[in-house]
């Protein structure tokens, strides 16, 4: 039986960053990464960028580590392997191939998979998802021949891919359940800005809408909405969220809610089993609650912290999480906690009329806890710092609303 000091399940950004940090601090400890994909570490974040799809960025830019990096750092990379059984007493992980690996420290950083359409015949040709490189390749192939696309969901995938499809001349209809884009993470004003930009870019938006049926024999030919409306299409891109397959972890007694539950050290309830990245539902010291986040930078930062904890350094993870997206002439970012409660106060910077609009979210204790930015991402680092340091707005409200005021002077 092969035994590793550090066994990493998941070869994405959390797993790879953790591996790198482990190797930097432990030159000789044996490390293996188990990945269900055929590829070494690549930039998942590039998959949704139009420039990648349109070939403006060379395809090979997607590889973030070379094969030699694994060899030089004595990292065993087991590709196309899926962990199917965990035994936390014997400290072993069984793979689908039958191979059993013994570990001293285990990191589960398996991320999530694109949630599939829960509809009969939802697997017709032309129904695409965008979560991994194989799915991106499939989507690229479909985009080359498609003429009419429907894009499902009001999130990052639809926003960025909607732009790409328009750039290559597809007719694009966006179908979303929500009353406006990015509800409820954005307010209606900001959501409207996004929708205006998309509509100006030629996207038709159907709000409060849901697909009831998929038409076509083997290949998608159209969708029928719950209100009976039929939309013809030869491509559907479905971006409706993530799911994590965690039965193998749960069966071993690791506590699960939506993701794998962890404390602020990214330790699970079982000794020597850690988690990081999109799959981790961790105690967020900034928000003060357990939360699961699906974004690249968070996964990267957690990869580093979890490795330090696997090395025994006992370092809490404290990070103001943020997302960014670009498309249709807009740069959009969201930081910290953007879920609004009635007692919260919003400080606005600029306005939708001039196509530049930020909202600073202040909780009942007068502390900044989150923000959204549209074409004002230059404010993000300062605001993140203010969120991180529990900044109380007290008499600074008018300064925070003044775009000519240098926000940096608020950082102590």
């Amino acid at each position: 039986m092969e035994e590793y000091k550090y066994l990493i399940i998941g070869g994405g950004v959390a797993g790879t960053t953790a591996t790198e940090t482990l190797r930097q601090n432990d030159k000789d400890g044996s490390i293996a990464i188990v990945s269900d994909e055929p590829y070494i570490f690549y930039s998942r974040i590039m998959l949704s960028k139009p420039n990648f799809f349109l070939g403006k960025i060379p395809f090979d830019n997607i590889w973030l580590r070379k094969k030699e990096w694994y060899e030089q750092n004595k990292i065993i990379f087991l590709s196309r392997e899926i962990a199917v059984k965990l035994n936390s007493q014997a400290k072993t992980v069984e793979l689908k191939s039958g191979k059993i690996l013994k570990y001293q420290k285990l990191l589960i950083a398996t991320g999530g998979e694109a949630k599939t359409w829960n509809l009969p015949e939802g697997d017709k040709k032309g129904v695409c998802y965008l979560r991994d490189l194989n799915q991106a390749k499939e989507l690229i192939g479909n985009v080359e021949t498609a003429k009419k696309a429907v894009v499902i969901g009001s999130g990052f995938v639809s926003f960025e891919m909607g732009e790409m499809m328009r750039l290559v001349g597809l007719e694009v209809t966006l179908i979303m359940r929500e009353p406006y884009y990015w509800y409820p993470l954005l307010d209606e004003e900001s959501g409207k800005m996004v929708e205006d930009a998309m509509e100006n870019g030629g996207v038709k938006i159907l709000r409060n809408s849901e697909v009831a049926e998929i038409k076509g024999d083997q290949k998608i030919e159209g969708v029928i909405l719950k209100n009976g409306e039929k939309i013809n299409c030869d491509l559907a891109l479905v971006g409706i969220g993530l799911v994590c397959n965690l039965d193998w972890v749960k069966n071993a007694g690791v506590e699960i809610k939506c993701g794998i539950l962890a404390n602020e050290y990214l330790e699970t309830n079982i000794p020597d089993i850690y988690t990081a990245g999109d799959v981790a539902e961790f105690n967020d010291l900034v928000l003060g609650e357990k939360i699961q986040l699906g974004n690249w930078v968070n996964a990267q930062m957690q990869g580093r912290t979890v490795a330090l904890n696997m090395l025994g350094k006992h370092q809490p993870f404290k990070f103001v999480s943020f997302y960014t997206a670009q498309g249709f002439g807009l740069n959009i970012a969201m930081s910290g906690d953007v879920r609004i409660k009635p007692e919260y106060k919003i400080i606005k910077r600029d306005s939708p009329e001039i196509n530049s609009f930020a909202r600073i979210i202040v909780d009942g204790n007068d502390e900044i806890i989150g923000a959204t930015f549209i074409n004002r991402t230059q404010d993000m680092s300062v605001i993140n710092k203010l969120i991180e340091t529990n900044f109380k707005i007290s008499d600074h409200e008018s300064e925070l609303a003044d775009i000519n005021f240098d926000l940096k002077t608020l950082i102590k």
Partner: protein
Amino acid sequence: MATKEYLRNKEGSNISKIVVDRDLCIGAASCIAVSGETWELDNENKAVVTHANAVDDATLLMSAESCPTKAIILFDKENKQIFPK
């Protein structure tokens, strides 16, 4: 290629130049997460260097390595590219 160069003259540092390829930069801001002392986003949502000498070589390299589009390029004193390798 739209690039911006930033010279670095930190004592004891082997990195003398930071280059940002603005065509590649997508404003993911991972560099800022690693080193907010060095980086910020400008009003075009591109990463710019605010303080080229703010952090040690290891942290600066880590911020470059964190970029999901490899938009940050580092050069040593002999003007040899040291990242991406």
